């Protein structure tokens, strides 16, 4: 075979202008599995990324420390590390601190990456009369804002961990020695940055507490979303639109206790003319939601995979301007930008479908096979 470059690729361009790749798989029995399949799937969509960002969120990864918050932190220099560690010692009991295992790989300018297993300082939590989660969130936000990019806590949940950086997925997996870990759920992302720079902290998934978000597309409503969330104490520090989604899920589900099935009615609500045609009660509910959370309406082309302990959620935008496919096979629920990436790890699927705009798909550990909720459009 003649190399393509001499035939019809005179510019030696072996990539295509395209969007990001998303992939997630969850074992609903809660059985942990290694990185082989998730990596194979996300690598199968190589054309969707350009090597300027990739990442993995792994759930069920630290069973020996599952009661402790696991912080993964990036440092650009030693001074930042000293500052953050001093702060952690003051606000938390640091049970274990170690450098994240890494090895040689095709990545550029990796920062120092450390991991800390911590528990909040109980007397301070009680003093402030807030929950442990809120205490952790507050401190993560404070450190990330004050460090201005010199240090970044990019993973802060219990029994889960995010690994991400600048490179292709296989390079990032190699760099962070992912062969050493197992999880019952893997969320993967390969990035093609458009509006914001490709830097280590800007790679997906984005994470806060045990929430992670991997995202393809853009949020044209970012400004409005950000203002709304800042009023609730969230600080946007990562130079990209995706983080508002993480905070939106945290606010709605963890803090405001909105049932998951109502979340898409806030983020990707039905159009007003559809609401007008609904039954009185439904109309009231949806009107109230749209009015209360108008600042969380997510506009623009996007598809998302959101995860937290025991749950994997898929959601495309209302106009379906980015792809998202769901598949079920054996004990697994898969979400992917392309069906082929699911098939490459599970050729025979019990069910496979392309999501409709605003359709939420939720996979839960120990739940009946999966829960499919078609709500946002409510046809």
């Amino acid at each position, binding site marked *: 075979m003649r190399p393509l470059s001499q035939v019809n*690729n005179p510019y030696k361009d072996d990539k*295509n202008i395209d969007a990001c790749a998303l992939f997630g798989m969850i074992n609903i029995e809660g059985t942990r599995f290694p990185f082989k399949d998730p990596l194979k799937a996300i690598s199968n969509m*190589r054309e969707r990324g350009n090597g300027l960002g990739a990442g993995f969120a792994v759930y069920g990864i630290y069973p020996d420390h599952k009661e402790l918050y696991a912080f993964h932190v990036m440092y650009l220099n030693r001074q930042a590390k000293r500052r953050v560690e001093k702060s952690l010692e003051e606000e938390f009991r640091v049970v274990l601190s170690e450098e994240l295992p890494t090895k040689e790989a095709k990545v550029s300018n990796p920062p120092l990456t450390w991991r800390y297993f911590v528990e909040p300082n109980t007397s301070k939590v009680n003093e402030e009369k807030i929950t442990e989660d809120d205490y952790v969130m507050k401190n993560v936000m404070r450190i990330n804002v004050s460090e201005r990019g010199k240090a970044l806590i990019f993973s802060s949940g219990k029994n889960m961990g995010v690994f991400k950086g600048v490179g292709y997925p296989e390079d990032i997996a190699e760099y962070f020695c992912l062969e050493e870990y197992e999880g019952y759920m893997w969320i993967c992302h390969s990035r093609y940055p458009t509006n914001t720079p490709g830097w280590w902290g800007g790679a997906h998934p984005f994470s806060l507490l045990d929430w992670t978000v991997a995202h393809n597309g853009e949020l044209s409503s970012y400004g409005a979303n950000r203002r709304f969330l800042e009023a609730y104490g969230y600080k946007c520090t990562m130079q990209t639109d995706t983080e508002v989604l993480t905070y939106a899920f945290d606010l709605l589900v963890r803090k405001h206790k909105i049932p998951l099935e109502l979340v898409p009615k806030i983020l990707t609500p039905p159009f007003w003319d559809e609401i007008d045609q609904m039954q009185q009660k439904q109309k009231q509910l949806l009107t109230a939601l749209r009015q209360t959370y108008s600042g969380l309406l997510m506009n623009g082309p996007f598809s998302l995979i959101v995860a937290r302990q025991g749950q994997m959620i898929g959601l495309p935008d209302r106009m*379906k301007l980015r*792809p998202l496919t769901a598949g079920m096979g054996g004990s697994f629920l898969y979400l992917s930008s392309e069906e082929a990436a699911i098939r490459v790890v599970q050729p025979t699927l019990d069910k496979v479908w392309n999501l*409709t705009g605003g359709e939420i798909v939720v996979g839960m550990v120990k739940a009946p096979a999966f829960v499919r909720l078609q709500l946002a459009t409510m046809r």
Partner: protein
Amino acid sequence: METPTETLKELSRLKIEEGAIGVNALEMRSYELNALIRDLVKKGFKGLNLYNVYGQRYIGAGLSGDITFKVYGTPGNDLGIFMNGPNMYVYGNVGDGCGNTMNDGLIAVYGHAGDIVGYSMRGGKIFIRDDVGYRAGIHMKGYRTAPTLVIGGCAGDFIGEYMAGGIILLLGLDESRRHETRFIGTGMHGGVIYVRGKITHLGKGAKMMDIDENDLRVICELVKQFCDLFNFNSSKIIKQEFTKIVPVSHRPYGRLYT
């Protein structure tokens, strides 16, 4: 340059079959597979059977002539892009952009398709046995021939968006589900969309019309071809009522600059 190792690697993927050459596409990158396909076509092969296709893009891109592809697996985006004559049978589901700017030939998919199937199609025929995603037939256009898109299942919203020519036939054969597609023919200014059964939501720029004799003849012919491909009963399909959707105007902005 061609090296002996590359030739051997290529040979191990190939197998002469009856009237065709088989290609094992396992773990090939898109450009490798397409370069190999072009090479084989150049050497005169008229039948290509592609096995273990997992997401490779642009299969059949820009190829002309009397070639028959059989694709086994799940091909990636832009299958048959710019294709100009070959017949392509896909035994599996296809990704987004199937038949993008296709000029002539046939694509038959024994499964479902992703978004924007038949995007900017200029000629030829696409038959999808099951559902299609959003914006099927977006910006289809007809010049000397009418491009044709036939869908056996249901379609996502915005079918026939900005359509400028050609024919879309939406059959909705799964009786358990109604057509839920909204914004049908938004911004269309040419071509025609036929929908089997009732529809609920038209897009701006489109209007409904009654079927006439000529329409029925076109529909019957396409349904027959669909049934021959996928083994359905055509008389049962034809029995139900069809709705015809056409543009309100062929030049909606004609007076904008006058």
